[in-house]
């Protein structure tokens, strides 16, 4: 299905011009100044893998500690830092940046037929800020001052009186710093989806993957500011002497929880909605069928996040709120199940009527549906307020959210790694080790997380660094630890398989799966300009519309919408996707990394309480911004 074959002189000449215009700088400098969404996606991918490894090691250390009663592999204070950093890492430094940063950045422009994001330099800025925030918060771990009040960092434990060290300051600043990166990515995706689609791709012809990422982006955009406010309040309480959370001076400790969970629950859906998006790509590819109930799946992806904003207090049913307040959150929590269920039925039905080639990516999706339904069934139990109050802060909760966050959010990430591996590297992965890695991870995670339900109901509390003998918890915990290491082995096999395939795999060609969306219509790996001609789109499964792809080839011949004079792409109207203008894109810039550097100096000064110096570094940020905007794009001529 290659767009380029058979090449003719005019088409070749145009492609050569595009090649020249979009080529990045060579070497390290090219990576540091890149604005190419594919390179930024890869940078995100490698960085988040490192953080995934760190979070995984933290998890294995905890499992080793809990493997038997009265164990003392790590000290209680180390254990506190381990579970806090595990949560922070997996949520803020693995899943969000892996889904939005890596998958979203790499694939979104390809799926909508664009040559880059709407704001390419801001995209680079987002990555460098993300990297700096990760380094910032991990420095605290190596200094033995890592956040240690849990990933949701409740006051009063996190207040200055009970956490006198810098641990929580690192938490507050690290979270705010990281939030800037995620907000930039979210805003980027929203604007890109609404303005940079190929002409003809009206919203109802947009792939479901893009709906999912649109939902996640809206979620981040409206959830993160609330977390920022919350952590700013805590920072002020700890360092300036304000009393937001100080009950003795009219503040409220529950206020922290309200603000935190107003962010925290949408966050869970932000983690999982991209996984839905990945599932809605892989299922059509391996069943060779369009998703059933397309409009319902699209709205369900958006609704999950939207209703997810109204359920936050169900994390606080045990904290002491009036019942009349709690029922509002119980009702919304019960109903948010409906859009999730709509999607589960649509996935299953598409697989049932389509049959399916159960290759590794689809296996991960089947595993994902199983884990999501299991985790969802325990999730809906928490709507029953009395039950929730019984199991709050026990391992039952830990079991539930790991089924969702690992089983449902990470399985599709693994499936997606296999699925898009041929696109990104141009090589095929090895199928048999792939399937073995799936079964290892599937058995491992269930062995790891299922017994947690039981010990939770037996009363084992979370966040305890050890437990006494004679409670009957030992065997379950041992099983969990074995499951943990089995899962780790499966993940190592997965990554090893991909690594070996990268060097030894067979050539994949542009479209090994006969995939449904536009990324499969261009080369593997895609050229830097993505598409030699802005593609014609008339349905959400554009790569299956052969007439349109023929039309692309004719357009390349005739020079229609090739836009080979400089770095250009089209802008469209937000809803119906009519061509609106032709825009010049920035291409390569040193300012994003410089601005991120200046910003990390600001946060470093803040954490060592040098506020004057922080202000001076803030001026540096402003100078970097002025420099950034000194370059104006060439004027539109078309």
């Amino acid at each position, binding site marked *: 299905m290659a767009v380029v074959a058979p090449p003719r002189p005019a088409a070749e000449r145009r492609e050569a011009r595009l090649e020249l215009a979009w080529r990045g700088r060579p070497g390290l400098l090219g990576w540091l100044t890149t604005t190419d969404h594919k390179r930024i996606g890869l940078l995100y991918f490698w960085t988040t893998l490192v953080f995934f490894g760190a979070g995984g090691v933290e998890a294995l250390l905890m499992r080793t500690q809990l493997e038997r009663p009265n164990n003392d592999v790590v000290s209680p204070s180390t254990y506190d830092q381990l579970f806090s950093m595990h949560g922070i890492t997996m949520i803020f430094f693995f899943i969000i940046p892996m889904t939005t940063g890596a998958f979203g950045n790499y694939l979104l422009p390809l799926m909508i037929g664009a040559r880059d994001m709407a704001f390419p330099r801001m995209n680079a800025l987002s990555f460098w800020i993300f990297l700096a925030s990760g380094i910032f918060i991990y420095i605290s771990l190596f200094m033995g001052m890592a956040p240690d009040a849990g990933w949701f960092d409740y006051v009063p434990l996190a207040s200055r009186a009970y956490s006198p060290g810098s641990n929580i300051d690192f938490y507050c600043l690290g979270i705010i710093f990281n939030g800037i990166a995620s907000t930039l990515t979210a805003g980027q995706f929203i604007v890109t989806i609404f303005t940079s689609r190929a002409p003809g791709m009206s919203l109802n012809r947009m792939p479901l993957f893009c709906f999912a990422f649109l939902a996640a982006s809206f979620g981040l955009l409206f959830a993160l500011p609330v977390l920022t406010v919350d952590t700013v309040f805590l920072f002020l309480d700890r360092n300036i002497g304000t009393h937001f959370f100080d009950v003795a*001076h009219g503040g409220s400790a529950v*206020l922290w929880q309200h603000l935190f969970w107003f962010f925290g629950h949408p966050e869970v859906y932000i983690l999982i909605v991209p996984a839905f998006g990945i599932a809605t790509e892989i299922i059509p590819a391996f069943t060779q069928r369009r998703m059933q109930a397309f409009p319902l799946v699209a709205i369900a992806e958006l609704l999950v996040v939207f209703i997810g904003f109204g359920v936050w207090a169900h994390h606080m049913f045990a904290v002491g709120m009036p019942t009349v307040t709690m029922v509002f959150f119980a009702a919304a929590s019960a109903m948010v199940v409906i859009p999730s269920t709509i999607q589960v039925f649509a996935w299953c039905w598409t697989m049932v009527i389509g049959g399916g080639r159960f290759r590794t990516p689809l296996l991960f999706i089947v595993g994902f549906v199983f884990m999501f339904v299991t985790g969802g069934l325990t999730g809906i139990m928490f709507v029953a307020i009395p039950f929730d109050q019984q199991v709050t802060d026990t391992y039952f909760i830990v079991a539930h959210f790991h089924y969702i966050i690992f089983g449902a959010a990470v399985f599709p990430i693994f499936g997606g790694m296999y699925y898009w591996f041929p696109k990104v590297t141009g090589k095929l992965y090895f199928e048999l080790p792939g399937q073995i890695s799936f079964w290892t991870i599937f058995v491992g995670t269930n062995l790891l997380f299922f017994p947690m339900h039981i010990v939770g109901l037996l009363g084992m509390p979370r966040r305890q660094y050890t437990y006494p003998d004679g409670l009957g918890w030992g065997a379950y915990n041992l099983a969990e630890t074995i499951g943990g290491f089995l899962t780790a082995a499966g993940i190592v096999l997965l990554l090893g398989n991909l690594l070996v395939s990268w060097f030894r795999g067979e050539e994949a060609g542009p479209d090994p799966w006969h995939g449904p969306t536009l990324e499969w219509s261009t080369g593997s790996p895609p050229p830097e300009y993505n598409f030699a001609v802005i593609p014609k789109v008339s349905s959400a499964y554009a790569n299956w519309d052969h007439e349109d792809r023929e039309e692309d080839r004719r357009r390349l011949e005739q020079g229609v919408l090739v836009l080979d004079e400089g770095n250009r792409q089209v802008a469209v109207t937000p809803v119906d996707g009519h061509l609106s203008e032709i825009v010049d894109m920035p291409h390569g810039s040193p300012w994003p990394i410089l601005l991120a550097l200046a910003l990390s100096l600001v946060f470093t000064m803040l954490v060592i309480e040098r506020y004057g110096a922080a202000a001076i570094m803030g001026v540096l940020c402003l100078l970097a911004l002025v420099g950034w905007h000194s370059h104006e794009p060439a004027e539109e001529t078309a």
Partner: protein
Amino acid sequence: MDVAARPALPRRNGPTAALLGMAVLVASEATLFAAMIGTYYYLRFETAVWPPRGVPEPKWVVPVILVAVLVCSSVPMELGSRAAQQGRLAAARSFFLVALVLQAGYFAYEVHDFADQLRETPIDRNAYTSVYYTLLGADHAHVFVGILFVVWLLGKLAFGLTPYRVNAARVITWYWHFVNLLTIVVLATLLSARA
């Protein structure tokens, strides 16, 4: 040049990426303030006497007048933006300059007043003062950012008008409409303590 740049399809006018980008920023900032205003009312509902004893009620005459002056700067901003879109460079410069004078005057007085209030009633007195100063300070910070935008814009306009600068003028004008609205909402929230 060959025919490469000629589009094959009819065109429609749509919002530019810059305008949408500003809309996204405004949405994010509005959420930030919604969270702070939510905090204000949450604390108020939990506190028997508001403002607590020993803390003066917020003054209203001067702040209301000042905010009215600030809000008036939306007019020269809008006129400046339109002048820029019509290519009238000199007019655009003067309108933005007038707006800048109003905004900077407001900001200078408010910063002075903020420092005065802090001397009288420090921020670490209780939860009321915490949320009062934080909300007000965050609003002032947004006015300050807006002033930086206008200064930067005037700096750019000193070297002529380009489509890029016209776009910037439109976007910054949008930001100022938002900040002005925000200032009204913040003031109304803070003055509700008098009710």
